[in-house]
Protein backbone atom coordinates (compact mmCIF):
# COMPACT_ATOMS: atom_id res chain seq x y z
CA UNK A 1 0.00 0.00 0.00
CA UNK A 2 1.49 3.38 -0.98
CA UNK A 3 1.94 5.92 1.81
CA UNK A 4 0.95 9.53 1.10
CA UNK A 5 1.94 12.52 3.20
CA UNK A 6 -0.55 15.39 3.03
CA UNK A 7 0.88 18.74 4.12
CA UNK A 8 -1.72 21.48 4.56
CA UNK A 9 -2.40 24.05 7.26
CA UNK A 10 -6.17 23.80 6.83
CA UNK A 11 -7.60 21.03 8.97
CA UNK A 12 -10.67 20.42 6.79
CA UNK A 13 -8.43 19.82 3.77
CA UNK A 14 -6.28 17.37 5.70
CA UNK A 15 -9.41 15.53 6.82
CA UNK A 16 -10.98 15.51 3.36
CA UNK A 17 -7.81 14.30 1.65
CA UNK A 18 -7.16 11.70 4.34
CA UNK A 19 -10.61 10.15 4.16
CA UNK A 20 -10.86 10.12 0.39
CA UNK A 21 -7.36 8.83 -0.18
CA UNK A 22 -7.74 6.14 2.46
CA UNK A 23 -10.94 5.06 0.70
CA UNK A 24 -8.95 4.94 -2.53
CA UNK A 25 -6.60 2.44 -0.89
CA UNK A 26 -3.70 4.61 0.26
CA UNK A 27 -2.15 4.89 3.68
CA UNK A 28 -2.28 8.57 4.63
CA UNK A 29 -0.28 10.59 7.13
CA UNK A 30 -0.57 14.35 7.59
CA UNK A 31 1.40 17.41 8.63
CA UNK A 32 -0.02 20.84 9.33
CA UNK A 33 3.04 22.85 8.40
CA UNK A 34 6.50 22.68 6.95
CA UNK A 35 8.01 22.55 10.43
CA UNK A 36 10.47 19.64 10.64
CA UNK A 37 8.93 18.26 7.47
CA UNK A 38 12.18 16.87 6.11
CA UNK A 39 12.71 14.95 9.36
CA UNK A 40 9.17 13.62 9.09
CA UNK A 41 9.80 12.47 5.51
CA UNK A 42 13.03 10.82 6.61
CA UNK A 43 11.21 8.99 9.43
CA UNK A 44 7.97 8.07 7.71
CA UNK A 45 9.36 7.46 4.22
CA UNK A 46 6.19 8.36 2.29
CA UNK A 47 5.88 7.32 -1.35
CA UNK A 48 4.43 10.70 -2.32
CA UNK A 49 3.80 14.14 -0.83
CA UNK A 50 0.77 16.34 -1.47
CA UNK A 51 1.96 19.82 -0.58
CA UNK A 52 -0.04 22.99 -0.02
CA UNK A 53 1.69 26.02 -1.53
CA UNK A 54 0.38 28.79 0.70
CA UNK A 55 0.60 27.93 4.35
CA UNK A 56 0.56 30.51 7.12
CA UNK A 57 4.17 30.11 8.18
CA UNK A 58 5.68 28.34 5.20
CA UNK A 59 6.01 28.77 1.46
CA UNK A 60 5.30 25.42 -0.17
CA UNK A 61 7.53 26.26 -3.14
CA UNK A 62 10.53 26.71 -0.83
CA UNK A 63 9.72 23.45 0.94
CA UNK A 64 9.49 21.80 -2.47
CA UNK A 65 13.10 22.80 -3.24
CA UNK A 66 14.26 21.35 0.10
CA UNK A 67 12.42 18.10 -0.57
CA UNK A 68 13.80 17.88 -4.11
CA UNK A 69 17.36 18.51 -2.91
CA UNK A 70 17.21 15.91 -0.18
CA UNK A 71 14.82 13.31 -1.62
CA UNK A 72 15.63 13.61 -5.30
CA UNK A 73 12.98 11.32 -6.78
CA UNK A 74 10.19 11.61 -4.19
CA UNK A 75 7.02 12.58 -6.08
CA UNK A 76 5.50 15.87 -4.95
CA UNK A 77 2.10 17.16 -6.03
CA UNK A 78 1.41 20.82 -5.36
CA UNK A 79 -2.04 21.59 -4.10
CA UNK A 80 -3.24 25.15 -4.41
CA UNK A 81 -6.26 27.38 -4.48
CA UNK A 82 -4.69 29.68 -7.10
CA UNK A 83 -2.69 28.91 -10.21
CA UNK A 84 -0.65 32.12 -10.08
CA UNK A 85 2.18 30.06 -8.52
CA UNK A 86 3.10 28.91 -12.04
CA UNK A 87 4.74 32.28 -12.60
CA UNK A 88 7.36 31.17 -10.09
CA UNK A 89 10.04 29.02 -11.71
CA UNK A 90 10.39 27.00 -8.52
CA UNK A 91 7.10 25.27 -9.29
CA UNK A 92 8.67 23.22 -12.11
CA UNK A 93 10.34 21.04 -9.50
CA UNK A 94 6.92 19.53 -8.73
CA UNK A 95 5.68 16.39 -10.44
CA UNK A 96 2.19 17.80 -10.85
CA UNK A 97 -0.13 20.39 -9.44
CA UNK A 98 -3.84 20.32 -8.67
CA UNK A 99 -6.25 23.10 -7.87
CA UNK A 100 -7.92 22.46 -4.52
CA UNK A 101 -11.42 21.09 -4.91
CA UNK A 102 -13.87 18.93 -3.02
CA UNK A 103 -13.86 16.63 -6.02
CA UNK A 104 -10.58 14.74 -5.73
CA UNK A 105 -10.77 12.97 -9.09
CA UNK A 106 -7.92 15.03 -10.56
CA UNK A 107 -5.77 14.60 -7.46
CA UNK A 108 -6.28 10.84 -7.46
CA UNK A 109 -5.42 10.68 -11.18
CA UNK A 110 -2.21 12.64 -10.64
CA UNK A 111 -1.28 10.53 -7.60
CA UNK A 112 -1.71 7.36 -9.65
CA UNK A 113 0.44 8.77 -12.47
CA UNK A 114 3.16 9.97 -10.12
CA UNK A 115 3.33 6.61 -8.39
CA UNK A 116 3.44 4.80 -11.73
CA UNK A 117 6.36 6.91 -12.97
CA UNK A 118 9.32 4.69 -13.58
CA UNK A 119 12.93 5.48 -14.37
CA UNK A 120 15.45 2.65 -14.69
CA UNK A 121 17.77 2.24 -11.66
Amino acid at each position, binding site marked *: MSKILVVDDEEHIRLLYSEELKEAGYEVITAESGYKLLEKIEEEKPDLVVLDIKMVDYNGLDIL*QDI*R*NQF*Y*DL*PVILSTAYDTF*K*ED*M*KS*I*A*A*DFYVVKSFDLTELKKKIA*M*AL*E*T*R*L*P*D
Partner: protein
Amino acid sequence: MAFYEENPGQIAQADIVVGIPTANEAGNIALTAARVDEGLSEYFPDMRRAIINCDNHSSDGTREAFFSAPGKASKLYISTEPGSGGKGRNVRNFFEKARRLNPKAMVIIEADIRNISPVWLRNLVTPVLKGAGFVCPIYERHKYESFLSNSIIYPLFRCLYGRRVRQCNAGDYAFGPKMLDIYLDPPFRSEMVDNSGADIWMADLALASRLPIVQAIMGAPKLHRVRGRFADLPVRFAEAVGTIFDLVQVNDTYWQQVKWSKPTALSGTDLQEVETPLPPADVSPERLHEKFIEDFDKYYRLWEHVYGPIVARKLQEIRSIGLQHFSFPTQTWMTILFDTMVAYRGMSISERKELVDGLLPLYVGKVLSYVKKAWRMSLQQAEEYIENECMTFEENKPYIIKSWTKGEKG
Protein backbone atom coordinates in the same frame (compact mmCIF):
# COMPACT_ATOMS: atom_id res chain seq x y z
CA MET B 1 44.35 14.50 -28.15
CA ALA B 2 44.58 18.20 -28.88
CA PHE B 3 46.86 19.04 -31.79
CA TYR B 4 48.35 21.98 -29.92
CA GLU B 5 48.51 22.94 -26.23
CA GLU B 6 49.74 25.91 -24.22
CA ASN B 7 49.83 25.53 -20.46
CA PRO B 8 51.94 28.47 -19.29
CA GLY B 9 51.34 27.77 -15.59
CA GLN B 10 52.18 24.06 -16.03
CA ILE B 11 48.88 23.21 -14.36
CA ALA B 12 48.60 19.53 -13.50
CA GLN B 13 45.53 19.57 -11.22
CA ALA B 14 42.38 21.67 -10.74
CA ASP B 15 39.13 21.32 -8.77
CA ILE B 16 36.95 23.22 -11.21
CA VAL B 17 37.70 23.35 -14.92
CA VAL B 18 35.76 25.54 -17.34
CA GLY B 19 36.01 24.96 -21.07
CA ILE B 20 35.24 27.68 -23.59
CA PRO B 21 34.98 26.24 -27.12
CA THR B 22 35.81 28.71 -29.86
CA ALA B 23 36.19 29.20 -33.58
CA ASN B 24 37.36 32.73 -34.35
CA GLU B 25 35.97 34.40 -31.24
CA ALA B 26 38.66 37.05 -30.71
CA GLY B 27 35.99 39.70 -30.23
CA ASN B 28 34.18 37.83 -27.44
CA ILE B 29 36.45 35.46 -25.58
CA ALA B 30 38.25 37.95 -23.34
CA LEU B 31 35.00 39.17 -21.79
CA THR B 32 33.66 35.64 -21.34
CA ALA B 33 36.90 34.40 -19.77
CA ALA B 34 37.01 37.39 -17.43
CA ARG B 35 33.41 36.88 -16.28
CA VAL B 36 33.98 33.17 -15.78
CA ASP B 37 37.04 33.98 -13.72
CA GLU B 38 35.04 36.48 -11.63
CA GLY B 39 32.39 33.86 -10.94
CA LEU B 40 34.90 31.21 -9.97
CA SER B 41 36.88 33.60 -7.73
CA GLU B 42 33.77 34.93 -6.01
CA TYR B 43 31.99 31.65 -5.32
CA PHE B 44 34.81 29.12 -5.16
CA PRO B 45 37.79 31.09 -3.81
CA ASP B 46 39.34 28.12 -2.02
CA MET B 47 39.26 25.76 -4.95
CA ARG B 48 41.89 25.33 -7.65
CA ARG B 49 40.40 26.85 -10.79
CA ALA B 50 41.32 26.54 -14.44
CA ILE B 51 39.87 27.91 -17.66
CA ILE B 52 40.61 26.16 -20.92
CA ASN B 53 40.07 27.75 -24.29
CA CYS B 54 39.31 24.82 -26.61
CA ASP B 55 39.81 26.29 -30.03
CA ASN B 56 39.39 25.33 -33.68
CA HIS B 57 42.79 26.76 -34.58
CA SER B 58 41.38 30.27 -34.99
CA SER B 59 43.29 32.70 -37.17
CA ASP B 60 41.75 35.88 -35.75
CA GLY B 61 43.75 36.15 -32.53
CA THR B 62 41.36 34.21 -30.27
CA ARG B 63 44.26 32.66 -28.36
CA GLU B 64 45.92 36.01 -27.67
CA ALA B 65 42.59 37.58 -26.65
CA PHE B 66 41.97 34.68 -24.26
CA PHE B 67 45.33 35.01 -22.54
CA SER B 68 44.88 38.79 -22.29
CA ALA B 69 41.72 38.46 -20.18
CA PRO B 70 42.18 39.56 -16.56
CA GLY B 71 41.73 37.00 -13.79
CA LYS B 72 43.28 34.70 -11.22
CA ALA B 73 42.34 31.26 -12.57
CA SER B 74 44.98 29.30 -14.45
CA LYS B 75 44.57 29.54 -18.20
CA LEU B 76 45.26 26.84 -20.76
CA TYR B 77 44.84 26.86 -24.51
CA ILE B 78 44.27 23.75 -26.61
CA SER B 79 43.43 23.49 -30.29
CA THR B 80 42.39 21.13 -33.02
CA GLU B 81 44.63 20.88 -36.04
CA PRO B 82 44.26 23.48 -38.82
CA GLY B 83 41.20 22.84 -40.97
CA SER B 84 39.51 20.71 -38.34
CA GLY B 85 36.44 22.52 -37.01
CA GLY B 86 33.32 21.80 -35.01
CA LYS B 87 32.29 22.33 -31.40
CA GLY B 88 32.25 18.56 -30.88
CA ARG B 89 35.97 18.28 -31.60
CA ASN B 90 36.68 21.12 -29.18
CA VAL B 91 34.67 19.58 -26.37
CA ARG B 92 36.35 16.22 -26.97
CA ASN B 93 39.73 17.89 -26.53
CA PHE B 94 38.34 19.51 -23.40
CA PHE B 95 37.26 16.15 -21.96
CA GLU B 96 40.69 14.66 -22.55
CA LYS B 97 42.53 17.59 -21.00
CA ALA B 98 40.09 17.82 -18.09
CA ARG B 99 40.61 14.14 -17.28
CA ARG B 100 44.32 14.80 -16.71
CA LEU B 101 43.52 17.67 -14.32
CA ASN B 102 41.31 15.39 -12.16
CA PRO B 103 38.59 17.98 -11.41
CA LYS B 104 35.56 17.71 -9.13
CA ALA B 105 33.40 19.79 -11.49
CA MET B 106 33.56 20.85 -15.13
CA VAL B 107 31.69 23.48 -17.10
CA ILE B 108 31.38 24.12 -20.81
CA ILE B 109 30.30 27.62 -21.65
CA GLU B 110 29.96 29.30 -25.03
CA ALA B 111 32.27 32.16 -25.90
CA ASP B 112 29.80 34.57 -27.44
CA ILE B 113 27.50 35.26 -24.47
CA ARG B 114 27.31 39.02 -24.05
CA ASN B 115 25.58 39.08 -20.67
CA ILE B 116 27.28 36.24 -18.81
CA SER B 117 26.99 36.82 -15.09
CA PRO B 118 29.41 35.47 -12.45
CA VAL B 119 26.48 34.00 -10.50
CA TRP B 120 25.77 31.67 -13.42
CA LEU B 121 28.98 29.85 -12.49
CA ARG B 122 27.71 29.39 -8.94
CA ASN B 123 24.40 27.98 -10.18
CA LEU B 124 26.06 25.59 -12.61
CA VAL B 125 28.94 24.36 -10.45
CA THR B 126 27.42 24.10 -6.94
CA PRO B 127 25.02 21.22 -7.75
CA VAL B 128 27.91 19.20 -9.23
CA LEU B 129 29.98 19.71 -6.08
CA LYS B 130 26.95 18.44 -4.14
CA GLY B 131 26.65 15.28 -6.23
CA ALA B 132 24.70 16.09 -9.40
CA GLY B 133 25.93 14.30 -12.51
CA PHE B 134 24.82 16.93 -15.01
CA VAL B 135 23.50 20.48 -14.77
CA CYS B 136 21.58 22.14 -17.57
CA PRO B 137 20.75 25.86 -17.47
CA ILE B 138 17.34 27.42 -17.83
CA TYR B 139 17.65 30.80 -19.50
CA GLU B 140 14.72 33.12 -19.86
CA ARG B 141 13.51 32.63 -23.39
CA HIS B 142 11.11 34.40 -25.67
CA LYS B 143 8.11 32.25 -26.58
CA TYR B 144 9.43 32.22 -30.16
CA GLU B 145 12.96 31.21 -29.25
CA SER B 146 14.39 27.72 -29.73
CA PHE B 147 11.72 26.07 -31.84
CA LEU B 148 13.83 22.94 -32.13
CA SER B 149 13.70 22.50 -28.39
CA ASN B 150 9.98 23.27 -28.15
CA SER B 151 8.92 21.03 -31.03
CA ILE B 152 11.32 18.10 -30.94
CA ILE B 153 13.95 17.94 -28.21
CA TYR B 154 11.89 18.68 -25.11
CA PRO B 155 8.81 16.56 -25.91
CA LEU B 156 10.86 13.68 -27.28
CA PHE B 157 13.46 13.58 -24.50
CA ARG B 158 10.81 13.93 -21.85
CA CYS B 159 8.79 11.09 -23.32
CA LEU B 160 11.77 8.84 -23.98
CA TYR B 161 14.10 9.49 -21.06
CA GLY B 162 11.54 10.54 -18.45
CA ARG B 163 13.29 13.73 -17.36
CA ARG B 164 11.79 17.19 -17.69
CA VAL B 165 14.85 19.15 -18.78
CA ARG B 166 13.61 22.21 -20.59
CA GLN B 167 16.66 23.52 -22.48
CA CYS B 168 18.75 20.50 -23.41
CA ASN B 169 20.28 22.34 -26.37
CA ALA B 170 21.37 25.38 -24.33
CA GLY B 171 25.02 24.78 -25.22
CA ASP B 172 26.32 25.48 -21.70
CA TYR B 173 26.50 22.66 -19.14
CA ALA B 174 28.20 21.54 -15.95
CA PHE B 175 29.00 17.95 -15.06
CA GLY B 176 30.97 15.76 -12.71
CA PRO B 177 33.67 13.10 -13.08
CA LYS B 178 31.20 10.23 -13.65
CA MET B 179 29.67 12.05 -16.60
CA LEU B 180 33.17 12.78 -17.89
CA ASP B 181 33.87 9.03 -17.88
CA ILE B 182 30.84 8.55 -20.14
CA TYR B 183 31.88 11.37 -22.48
CA LEU B 184 35.36 9.90 -22.78
CA ASP B 185 34.11 6.41 -23.47
CA PRO B 186 30.72 7.06 -25.08
CA PRO B 187 28.43 4.37 -26.45
CA PHE B 188 28.20 6.43 -29.64
CA ARG B 189 30.00 9.22 -31.47
CA SER B 190 29.76 10.44 -35.04
CA GLU B 191 30.82 13.11 -37.49
CA MET B 192 27.58 14.94 -36.63
CA VAL B 193 28.53 14.90 -32.94
CA ASP B 194 31.95 16.30 -33.80
CA ASN B 195 30.19 19.21 -35.45
CA SER B 196 27.03 20.90 -34.17
CA GLY B 197 25.41 17.74 -32.75
CA ALA B 198 27.69 17.99 -29.70
CA ASP B 199 25.24 19.86 -27.46
CA ILE B 200 22.43 17.42 -27.97
CA TRP B 201 24.83 14.47 -27.64
CA MET B 202 26.04 15.69 -24.24
CA ALA B 203 22.53 16.23 -22.91
CA ASP B 204 21.20 13.00 -24.37
CA LEU B 205 23.94 10.88 -22.78
CA ALA B 206 23.36 12.65 -19.47
CA LEU B 207 19.63 11.95 -19.51
CA ALA B 208 20.23 8.27 -20.13
CA SER B 209 23.08 8.06 -17.59
CA ARG B 210 20.98 7.44 -14.46
CA LEU B 211 22.99 10.21 -12.77
CA PRO B 212 21.15 12.98 -10.90
CA ILE B 213 20.25 15.90 -13.17
CA VAL B 214 19.75 19.47 -11.96
CA GLN B 215 18.48 22.52 -13.85
CA ALA B 216 20.11 25.83 -13.03
CA ILE B 217 17.94 28.94 -13.14
CA MET B 218 19.99 31.70 -14.75
CA GLY B 219 17.49 34.52 -14.19
CA ALA B 220 18.15 36.17 -17.55
CA PRO B 221 18.10 35.41 -21.26
CA LYS B 222 21.28 34.28 -22.96
CA LEU B 223 22.26 37.14 -25.22
CA HIS B 224 24.52 35.78 -27.89
CA ARG B 225 25.06 35.79 -31.61
CA VAL B 226 21.86 34.84 -33.37
CA ARG B 227 22.43 32.31 -36.08
CA GLY B 228 20.49 32.78 -39.32
CA ARG B 229 17.06 31.19 -39.11
CA PHE B 230 17.10 29.66 -42.55
CA ALA B 231 20.65 30.02 -43.86
CA ASP B 232 22.26 27.17 -41.91
CA LEU B 233 19.06 25.57 -40.61
CA PRO B 234 19.19 22.42 -42.79
CA VAL B 235 22.67 21.48 -41.54
CA ARG B 236 22.01 22.31 -37.88
CA PHE B 237 18.65 20.52 -38.04
CA ALA B 238 20.13 17.41 -39.66
CA GLU B 239 22.99 17.20 -37.16
CA ALA B 240 20.82 17.72 -34.08
CA VAL B 241 17.97 15.47 -35.20
CA GLY B 242 20.30 12.83 -36.65
CA THR B 243 22.19 12.70 -33.36
CA ILE B 244 18.92 12.30 -31.42
CA PHE B 245 17.82 9.42 -33.67
CA ASP B 246 21.24 7.75 -33.49
CA LEU B 247 21.14 7.86 -29.71
CA VAL B 248 17.56 6.61 -29.58
CA GLN B 249 18.93 3.32 -30.92
CA VAL B 250 21.87 3.27 -28.52
CA ASN B 251 19.64 3.93 -25.50
CA ASP B 252 16.62 1.84 -26.48
CA THR B 253 16.86 -0.59 -23.56
CA TYR B 254 16.82 2.39 -21.22
CA TRP B 255 13.94 4.38 -22.67
CA GLN B 256 11.68 1.40 -23.14
CA GLN B 257 11.66 1.00 -19.34
CA VAL B 258 10.71 4.63 -18.69
CA LYS B 259 7.12 5.44 -17.84
CA TRP B 260 5.92 9.07 -17.54
CA SER B 261 8.41 11.76 -16.58
CA LYS B 262 9.86 13.38 -13.50
CA PRO B 263 10.99 16.92 -12.72
CA THR B 264 14.55 17.65 -11.68
CA ALA B 265 15.98 19.52 -8.72
CA LEU B 266 16.75 23.20 -9.33
CA SER B 267 19.62 25.48 -8.43
CA GLY B 268 19.60 29.26 -8.40
CA THR B 269 16.06 29.55 -7.05
CA ASP B 270 17.21 32.50 -4.92
CA LEU B 271 18.17 34.49 -7.99
CA GLN B 272 16.30 37.73 -8.55
CA GLU B 273 15.27 38.24 -12.14
CA VAL B 274 17.68 40.55 -13.91
CA GLU B 275 16.11 43.14 -16.12
CA THR B 276 17.70 42.17 -19.39
CA PRO B 277 15.46 42.66 -22.40
CA LEU B 278 14.59 39.48 -24.24
CA PRO B 279 15.96 39.37 -27.78
CA PRO B 280 13.40 40.36 -30.41
CA ALA B 281 11.72 37.38 -32.00
CA ASP B 282 12.23 37.46 -35.71
CA VAL B 283 9.37 35.28 -36.91
CA SER B 284 7.44 35.52 -40.14
CA PRO B 285 4.42 33.21 -40.52
CA GLU B 286 4.36 34.00 -44.24
CA ARG B 287 7.97 32.89 -44.71
CA LEU B 288 7.38 29.70 -42.71
CA HIS B 289 4.29 28.91 -44.75
CA GLU B 290 6.15 29.48 -48.02
CA LYS B 291 8.89 27.13 -46.85
CA PHE B 292 6.38 24.44 -45.87
CA ILE B 293 4.54 24.62 -49.21
CA GLU B 294 7.78 24.93 -51.23
CA ASP B 295 9.07 21.51 -50.16
CA PHE B 296 5.72 19.73 -49.94
CA ASP B 297 5.69 18.15 -53.39
CA LYS B 298 9.39 17.36 -53.24
CA TYR B 299 8.96 15.08 -50.23
CA TYR B 300 5.34 13.98 -50.44
CA ARG B 301 6.13 10.53 -51.93
CA LEU B 302 8.69 9.92 -49.22
CA TRP B 303 6.20 10.87 -46.52
CA GLU B 304 3.56 8.63 -48.04
CA HIS B 305 6.05 5.76 -48.03
CA VAL B 306 7.38 6.30 -44.49
CA TYR B 307 4.28 7.50 -42.63
CA GLY B 308 1.57 5.63 -44.54
CA PRO B 309 -1.66 6.75 -46.22
CA ILE B 310 -3.47 8.07 -43.11
CA VAL B 311 -0.72 10.54 -42.19
CA ALA B 312 -0.20 11.40 -45.87
CA ARG B 313 -3.88 12.32 -46.22
CA LYS B 314 -3.66 14.41 -43.05
CA LEU B 315 -0.66 16.26 -44.52
CA GLN B 316 -2.61 17.01 -47.69
CA GLU B 317 -5.39 18.35 -45.50
CA ILE B 318 -2.92 20.55 -43.58
CA ARG B 319 -1.57 21.94 -46.84
CA SER B 320 -5.04 22.74 -48.10
CA ILE B 321 -5.94 24.83 -45.03
CA GLY B 322 -3.93 27.89 -46.09
CA LEU B 323 -1.99 30.28 -43.89
CA GLN B 324 -4.89 32.00 -42.18
CA HIS B 325 -6.20 28.90 -40.42
CA PHE B 326 -3.02 26.83 -40.57
CA SER B 327 -2.73 24.16 -37.90
CA PHE B 328 -0.51 21.09 -37.53
CA PRO B 329 -2.12 18.77 -34.95
CA THR B 330 0.12 17.59 -32.13
CA GLN B 331 -1.06 14.00 -32.63
CA THR B 332 0.05 14.07 -36.30
CA TRP B 333 3.39 15.63 -35.42
CA MET B 334 4.00 13.07 -32.68
CA THR B 335 3.16 10.16 -35.00
CA ILE B 336 5.54 11.58 -37.63
CA LEU B 337 8.40 11.93 -35.14
CA PHE B 338 7.87 8.45 -33.71
CA ASP B 339 7.59 6.87 -37.16
CA THR B 340 10.71 8.73 -38.33
CA MET B 341 12.64 7.33 -35.36
CA VAL B 342 11.59 3.80 -36.27
CA ALA B 343 12.24 4.22 -40.00
CA TYR B 344 15.65 5.84 -39.39
CA ARG B 345 16.91 2.73 -37.62
CA GLY B 346 16.57 0.45 -40.63
CA MET B 347 17.97 2.83 -43.24
CA SER B 348 21.30 3.33 -44.97
CA ILE B 349 23.21 6.58 -44.38
CA SER B 350 21.97 8.13 -47.63
CA GLU B 351 18.38 7.10 -46.94
CA ARG B 352 18.65 8.58 -43.44
CA LYS B 353 19.83 11.86 -44.90
CA GLU B 354 16.83 12.01 -47.18
CA LEU B 355 14.49 11.07 -44.33
CA VAL B 356 15.81 13.85 -42.07
CA ASP B 357 15.84 16.34 -44.96
CA GLY B 358 12.21 15.41 -45.55
CA LEU B 359 11.37 15.97 -41.88
CA LEU B 360 12.56 19.57 -42.10
CA PRO B 361 9.54 21.00 -44.01
CA LEU B 362 7.20 19.15 -41.65
CA TYR B 363 9.07 20.70 -38.72
CA VAL B 364 8.68 24.10 -40.36
CA GLY B 365 4.94 23.39 -40.60
CA LYS B 366 4.83 22.44 -36.93
CA VAL B 367 6.72 25.64 -36.02
CA LEU B 368 4.25 27.70 -38.06
CA SER B 369 1.36 26.04 -36.26
CA TYR B 370 2.90 26.90 -32.87
CA VAL B 371 3.66 30.48 -33.95
CA LYS B 372 0.03 31.00 -34.91
CA LYS B 373 -1.37 29.36 -31.79
CA ALA B 374 0.96 31.26 -29.46
CA TRP B 375 0.48 34.61 -31.22
CA ARG B 376 -1.64 36.10 -28.44
CA MET B 377 -0.30 33.95 -25.62
CA SER B 378 1.85 35.16 -22.76
CA LEU B 379 5.14 33.32 -22.21
CA GLN B 380 3.53 31.36 -19.40
CA GLN B 381 0.55 30.37 -21.55
CA ALA B 382 2.90 29.29 -24.33
CA GLU B 383 4.86 27.18 -21.83
CA GLU B 384 1.65 25.53 -20.66
CA TYR B 385 0.76 24.80 -24.28
CA ILE B 386 4.13 23.07 -24.75
CA GLU B 387 3.70 21.17 -21.47
CA ASN B 388 0.35 19.87 -22.75
CA GLU B 389 1.98 18.77 -25.99
CA CYS B 390 4.57 16.89 -23.95
CA MET B 391 1.79 15.08 -22.12
CA THR B 392 0.41 13.94 -25.48
CA PHE B 393 3.83 12.47 -26.27
CA GLU B 394 4.02 10.75 -22.88
CA GLU B 395 0.49 9.37 -23.12
CA ASN B 396 1.38 7.83 -26.47
CA LYS B 397 4.60 6.17 -25.30
CA PRO B 398 3.03 2.70 -25.76
CA TYR B 399 2.71 3.53 -29.49
CA ILE B 400 6.41 4.16 -29.93
CA ILE B 401 7.37 1.10 -27.90
CA LYS B 402 5.02 -1.04 -29.99
CA SER B 403 6.34 0.39 -33.28
CA TRP B 404 9.93 0.04 -32.15
CA THR B 405 9.50 -3.55 -31.00
CA LYS B 406 7.66 -4.42 -34.20
CA GLY B 407 10.52 -2.89 -36.18
CA GLU B 408 13.04 -5.04 -34.28
CA LYS B 409 11.22 -8.14 -35.37
CA GLY B 410 11.51 -6.93 -38.94
